[in-house]
């Protein structure tokens, strides 16, 4: 609301002087980010424009060969697609599982709401390693889930739920669900409950009210949630490394392998730069989505 009001102000009349104090306030944050985040990242990306000259070393000559090798080799493109596919599945999973939970949290008057919210953020309170290793007793072939399904006679042989792509998807949905739920809860809370009642009074069923009223109005929240989860899913390392059984080579595990094991900094830097570029492009595209009815300025 406030942004659209500001956008409508005639630009030349905008008091320029008033923006400056904000810049000063931002300066410490920008300096810290620049120093501990942007500068090392730039250094890392610079490595990708050189040839490897032995372990952990690069030569002086500038080259684009690493990028050429990456984009012309189907193996790497497949890896990029696999990463992207993983991100989309996880994001979709989080949306489907998270939306009803977020709706409940936003609308419930229950005194258990605080406890439910705590349950939602609880995966964030456990270290990533413990959270991932914790899936083994549940999902492994001799684990609780397979034991139950076998006892109930629903399956004849244990399912492979871990050490493969399925395991990574399950682990990432669990890890990233809080981000989706918290984002959606905030947005749904801001939508007046009266609107749903009005829709019901005008004859809309619950599904229609959701589809025609709630979903379009919560779209900005959905998009930020999707974006947040997708960006975190395509850059996740620990979960693919532990639950993928090293069968799921994604960009993040490849980058870690090249930097930490092969000590091939140019190859790792190239993949890191491309993953970053990919994430930036997607973010810019996703930010074009506006809630229904609002025009882009």
């Amino acid at each position, binding site marked *: 609301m406030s942004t659209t009001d500001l956008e409508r102000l005639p630009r030349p009349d905008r008091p320029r002087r008033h923006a400056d104090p904000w810049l000063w306030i931002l300066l410490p944050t920008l300096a810290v980010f620049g120093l501990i985040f942007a500068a090392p990242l730039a250094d890392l990306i610079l490595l990708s424009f050189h040839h*490897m000259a*032995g*372990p*952990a*070393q690069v030569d002086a000559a500038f080259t684009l060969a690493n990028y050429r090798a990456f984009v012309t080799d189907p*193996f790497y493109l*497949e*890896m990029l697609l*696999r990463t992207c596919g993983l991100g989309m599945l996880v994001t979709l999973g989080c949306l489907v599982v998270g939306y009803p939970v977020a709706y409940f949290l936003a609308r419930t008057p229950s005194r258990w709401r605080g406890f439910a919210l705590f349950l939602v953020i609880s995966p964030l309170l456990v270290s990533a*390693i413990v959270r991932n*290793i914790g899936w*083994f*007793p549940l999902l*492994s*072939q*001799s*684990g609780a889930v397979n034991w139950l399904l076998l006892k109930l006679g629903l399956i004849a042989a244990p399912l492979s739920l871990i*050490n493969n792509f399925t395991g990574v998807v399950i682990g990432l949905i669990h890890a990233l669900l809080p981000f989706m739920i918290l984002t959606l809860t905030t947005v749904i809370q801001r939508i007046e409950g009266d609107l749903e009642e009005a829709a019901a009074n005008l004859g809309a069923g619950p599904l229609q009210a959701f589809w025609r009223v709630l979903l379009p109005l919560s779209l900005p929240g959905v998009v930020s949630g999707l974006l947040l989860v997708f960006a975190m899913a395509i850059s996740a390392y620990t979960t693919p*490394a*532990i639950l993928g*059984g*090293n*069968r*799921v*080579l994604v960009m993040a595990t*490849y980058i870690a*392998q090249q930097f*930490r*094991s*092969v*000590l*091939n900094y140019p190859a790792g830097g190239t993949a890191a730069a491309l993953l970053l570029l990919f994430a930036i492009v997607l973010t810019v595209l996703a930010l074009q989505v506006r809630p229904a009815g609002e025009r882009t300025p």
Partner: protein
Amino acid sequence: MRSRVESFFGGALFLIGLLAGSSATALAQSNVTLQIGCYGGAFTDVEQRFVAEPFTARTGIKITWINGNPSDHLAKLIASRGRPAPYDIVYLDDDIEAEAVNAGVLGKSGADDLPNLKFLYAQAINKDGFGPALNFYSTGIAYNVEKFKAAGIPAPTSWADLWNPKLAGHVGVPTLENTMGHAFLVAAEHLAGGDESTPEKGIDKIAQIKAQSYPGSSPVLDPLLRSGDVWVAPWLNGRTWGLIDRGVPLRFVLPKEGGFFGMTTISVTGTTQHRKEALAFINDVLGPLAQLGMASQIPYGPTNKLLAGILAAYPEMAKKFPSSPEDLAKLKLINWNVFHQQYPHAVDLWNRKIASK
């Protein structure tokens, strides 16, 4: 158990007194602090207790441990070239040490610098005069006795037994990013009629195994061996015995082709400002007190020959690691220089043929 360990130390006391006494006069009290790159966890604890504390008490030289992954230590040493090194001493696995030597970041240490060097087994001494090994471990085959019996599979005696079709879906194959994975690649290369210079043969061979998964580290394989999801895996003596001691029905065997040596080396860095003090510390690490202390706490075999007799008197402890000349004869050394030349190529083949199939 405790009294047994104590009497065990008592039995070795005269030997230790003899050697420690001779070097005690070598250095006057000093206020130097040595920066030492090590692994962390139980390993650093043992070195702190059996080497650093008595060393500091005797010489006044203080120790600061910088714990981390050995390849991270190597990366830091390479990054600091041309400036004083961030470490005076660094503990590295022998495979990483070979890379560090090639990168020119380590200093040499000969028999004149290290009086204890003459007591070490030949396999522990670096032929080019770089840091020697302070312990031996081995890569062999860990297997679940109960699962093998239930499936009617005979106990493994060869690396080739891991390709048994009856084991399909139950083999834990370590990735190329750890010591066991390195050794297993060499084992596969040999089975396929090649050697360290032909990773394509080894990778093609490994790709034929129907793996349960490809564990990248021990904390990932441990629960799989414990739950029985993995029946067999190329693995380390120490990690396997850790599980056996907790009641997991495993056994550790060295295949008839030979298991592979693993060792922890200790080196002085090339640009240390405290070479003399660093060498005095390393000499203590190679001494019998430190090595016996380590062997009593974590399953690594001493490289000091003087301990063979004592270890033979304690078979319950000594069976967990390479502890005698006969044990060492069952292990093969890997040509790390050739291995590392091929390593980026090997990882690339692994990524294409195994990690993303």
